[in-house]
């Protein structure tokens, strides 16, 4: 059995699936030995499958699992969620009041937060590298998918970003903000 280039191209996918008759496979094998172009098509198609089949092709966004579980929690245990929401709101109110007192008594010169909805960046490690954009109000972990102006980013340490009035992104910095909140709750309880 002999096959030409066009026949090889139409069967190359099945060939890679192991889904061709032994006679046809042998004929294609022989063809690949001789035909440089078909061999290039074969190698390239194998590479396509290998590359796209790699788990690294698609990364899940930062915080994906947390948000997924939160959504499930809201639907699976709505009453628990309401209680947690109430707890967070109450704690946030206490923290806001506390922050106001601290800010009032503070003598340090710090730029005003760029957003009136800003959260304190106190829980973020001060030497952590973060990125900001000139038009933005938040600082992010490098690679955070919620950065708006990706074309004009600069890196700096968190301490400097806070000094410049940037506040933490609630998504990529969530674990630090939550840790800060938990510490505050412990302090209040304790």
């Amino acid at each position, binding site marked *: 059995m002999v096959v030409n280039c*066009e026949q090889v*191209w*139409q069967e*190359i*996918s*099945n060939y*890679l*699936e192991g*889904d061709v008759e032994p006679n046809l496979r042998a004929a294609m094998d022989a063809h690949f030995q001789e035909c*440089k*172009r078909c061999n*290039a*098509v074969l*190698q*390239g*198609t194998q*590479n*396509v*499958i*290998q*590359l*796209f*089949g*790699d*788990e*690294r*092709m*698609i*990364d*899940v*966004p*930062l*915080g*994906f*699992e*947390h*948000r*997924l*579980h939160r*959504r*499930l929690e809201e*639907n*699976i*245990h709505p009453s628990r969620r309401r209680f947690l929401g109430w707890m967070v709101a109450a704690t946030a109110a206490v923290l806001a009041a506390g922050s106001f007192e601290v800010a009032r008594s503070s003598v340090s010169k710090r730029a005003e937060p760029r957003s009136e909805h800003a959260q304190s960046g106190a829980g973020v490690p001060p030497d952590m590298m973060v990125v900001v954009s000139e038009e933005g109000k938040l600082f992010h*972990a*490098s*690679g*955070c*998918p919620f950065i708006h102006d*990706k074309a004009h980013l600069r890196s700096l340490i968190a301490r400097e970003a806070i000094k410049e009035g940037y506040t933490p992104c609630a998504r*990529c910095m969530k*674990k630090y903000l939550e840790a800060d909140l938990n510490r505050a709750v412990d302090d209040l309880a304790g």
Partner: protein
Amino acid sequence: MGSGIGSARGTMPEAPTSPNYQLDEASEELLIRRVQDGEHEAFYELIRPYQRRVYAAAFAITRNDAEAEDVAQETMLRAFKKLRQFRAESRFSTWLIQIAVNEARMRNRRARMSMVEPIVEQQDAEGNYIPRDFADWREIPSETLERREIREKLAEALASLGEIYRDVFVLRDMQHMSIEETAKALGISTASVKTRLLRARLMLRDLLAPGFGGAWSTRLQFAKGTKPW
């Protein structure tokens, strides 16, 4: 094109989303029974190995970060609500991916309906596909996918395929579903899956071979707004 595939994202500290987290079949069956019997907490453990795959399938079809995340969330919610109806006729992972694919495709359709532009490439092309480029592309260095620009090129190429080809390719070559599972998930025949898969693979090779065979410093043909087919 969303930035999801090629974006330089932070590494998630959420180990369970790791592709390496696996459940054996018996553990999975047990978890399914526990959830079906009302132990809702077990659902989180049940879906952990598949969270990443569900997101990846949704992203490959919607090509939008936020939409894909919403599809993934909706998929898991639906799976939870319908778990009592799940029968072990198919794998749990296949069932999940199928829900995700249906949801993602429905959203794509909805988005298209709101657009004025005509829908193109919704039918199988007639005739055989002839490769257009014979650049020699032999080896892939193992670190290739670590490079963001390479992932972006791959994402661009995938996005440029017609939907009917992309969906088949995503399920078969990215989600590693069988030909039969792919056919079932998309509601088409296995023969159509094979035909579309061949075309998708060859088109992608045509798009990518010149870059991998030469240098990525030059823009690929499809990036100029012209598809080579």
